[in-house]
């Protein structure tokens, strides 16, 4: 089952297509009963309890009972995306959240049978941060400087450097820890950051910073990814669909209730949480999502081309993976079905409560 780019293009041109019309006639009673028969669905967030979009969706959906409303017995677990991908691959998880599409692609390239089924925003979250007074305004200015990365250099940054015409041999790339203030305290001039996190931390500490955003040089990636185990998705396509449906429903609520959202997460983390930082994260990420929405499509929808370009970015940045196709790594058919046009389909209040 594959949504396919063509359909996407078509529906793009024709917003109120009938392609989703069938879903309007969902027999909810039957669907809920079917969902209930599946048993527990395990899912894992990409970064514990932090207010990343998609993660927050899952926690809120759980808190507000959206999963239950659809008959899904979902167990949301805090985790890290690197683990989550592996557990998804072996079927210990049925669904899992990834930070970036790249993680799904790399997992598939390593033999994992999983697919991306939701991308909250077709826009990159990772950027390069420099101090405002560093004089670095473009990637070319980074020549002769040191860039710090966490774990590994993200592909979209590598792509940005290339596109900007920087001489990579003149840039030293080093792995660094969690602390963004090393821009001030060490000879590192730029570090990879989440737009929704480190800039705010730096601001709080009183440092003025500037972001070099791959998005600006046309390096398009995405964030807020949800992946599904292939076997599970093939067996229970409706469950995958309804999982997404609950997340998106939760998102609508989150946009309305950011403060309550933070409270919910704080409670879930039993205090192992930073309200300021997470409030900011949520704010920044929700603000990134909206303008990036594919016109005429519901939130979270993505195209095949989008994934293809992410595959290409990975390849170009020299990360060796086995060749994969866009169809192997993503399937937008589930997210396509949760919308009527760009309106989320949700069972009438009568069926529940």
């Amino acid at each position, binding site marked *: 089952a594959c949504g396919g780019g063509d359909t996407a293009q078509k529906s793009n041109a024709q917003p109120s297509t009938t392609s989703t019309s069938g879903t309007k006639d969902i027999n909810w009673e039957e669907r809920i009963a079917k969902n209930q028969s599946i048993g527990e669905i395990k899912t894992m967030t990409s970064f*514990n*309890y932090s207010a990343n979009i998609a993660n927050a969706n899952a926690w809120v959906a759980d808190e507000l009972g959206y999963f239950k409303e659809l008959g899904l017995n979902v167990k949301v*677990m*805090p*985790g*890290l995306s*690197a*683990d989550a991908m*592996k*557990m998804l691959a*072996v079927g*210990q998880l049925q669904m899992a959240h990834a930070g970036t599409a790249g993680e799904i692609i790399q997992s598939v390239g390593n033999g994992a049978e999983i697919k991306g089924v939701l991308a909250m925003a077709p826009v990159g979250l990772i950027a390069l941060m420099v101090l405002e007074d560093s004089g670095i305004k473009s990637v070319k200015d980074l020549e002769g400087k040191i860039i710090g990365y966490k774990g590994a250099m993200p592909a979209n940054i590598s792509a940005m450097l290339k596109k900007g015409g920087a001489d990579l041999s003149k840039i030293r790339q080093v792995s660094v*820890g*969690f*602390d*963004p*203030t090393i821009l001030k*305290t060490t000879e590192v001039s730029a570090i990879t950051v989440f737009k929704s996190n480190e800039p705010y*931390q730096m601001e709080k*500490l009183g440092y003025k910073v500037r972001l070099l955003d791959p998005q600006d040089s046309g390096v398009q990636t995405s964030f807020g990814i949800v992946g599904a185990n292939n076997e599970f998705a093939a067996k229970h396509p409706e469950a995958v669909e309804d999982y997404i449906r609950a997340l998106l429903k939760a998102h609508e609520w989150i946009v309305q209730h950011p403060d309550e959202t933070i409270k919910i997460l704080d409670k879930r*983390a*039993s*205090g*192992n*949480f*930073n309200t300021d*930082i997470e409030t900011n994260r949520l704010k920044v990420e929700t603000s990134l999502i909206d303008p990036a929405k594919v016109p005429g499509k519901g939130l979270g929808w993505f195209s095949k081309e989008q994934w293809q370009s992410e595959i290409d970015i990975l390849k170009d940045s020299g990360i060796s993976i086995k060749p994969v196709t866009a169809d192997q790594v993503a399937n937008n058919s589930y997210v396509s079905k949760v919308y009527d046009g760009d309106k989320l389909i949700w069972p009438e209040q009568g069926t529940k409560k």
Partner: protein
Amino acid sequence: MSQSVTETNGGAVLSEGKKRTKPLSESKLKGAASSFLTPLIAFVAFFCLWEMIIRIFKIKMVILPAPSGIFTELLRNFSFYLPHIWTTFTEAISGFFIGALIALIAGILLSQSRLLERVLLPLAVLAHVTPIVAIAPLFIVWFGFGAFPKILLAAISTFFPMMINSIMGFRSIDENNYEYLQSLHASKFEIFIKLRLPNSLPYLFSAARTGMSMGVIGAIVGEMYGGSEGLGNVLTVAANYLQMERMFAAIMLLALIGILLTNAVKVVENRFLHWHSSSK
């Protein structure tokens, strides 16, 4: 003039033998107090120095927080830390005992045969050198989010020093005593139980001290990569939030657990090693 045997000191001896119970237990109490007091003083001195350095050089909190801030954080949110302490503590200690047990068994096998040692020791080195930081995520994937993978990591961390020391300890026997047991046709097992094991106690207790703190580290690393409990988790989350005071509070608590556990080893050691020259 350093004394080479336990001796009475001066007048105390002259009192009657029966009256000795009281002063003895008193001196025991005193000993216990001083054995708590001296390290306490050391710590207070250490933290004062630290605090002074922070203030004199005006070091920012993101670089290194002041002890005052760390302790304030600790005291204010103590109930927050409590369950995490318990989690890490139980994981570390279970891991330690499992790791120690396996290490002893391995030590017995490897000390019995040079061939087995040549075959298995490199594999043990492989297991030990493989950074737990690298395998922790795999363990989470293989064994889930419960306490098990953390206990396993603690056990692996404990294992190696225990095994290496136990091999050496089991072999460092007195030839005369060994020969005497042989003359009784003691089985390998009896020689182990009666001679090798008690003889290796100084080695085992040394290793247990190292192993205890390594067990704590193993548990922490496991917590860093999976689950939402334990001081390891508090540590990473705090690090990510740049909550340096909380991060260092977690480190303090870890150190406390480590010190507690190594001191527990010491207590057991004093009980079992009074006959050894190291206990003078």
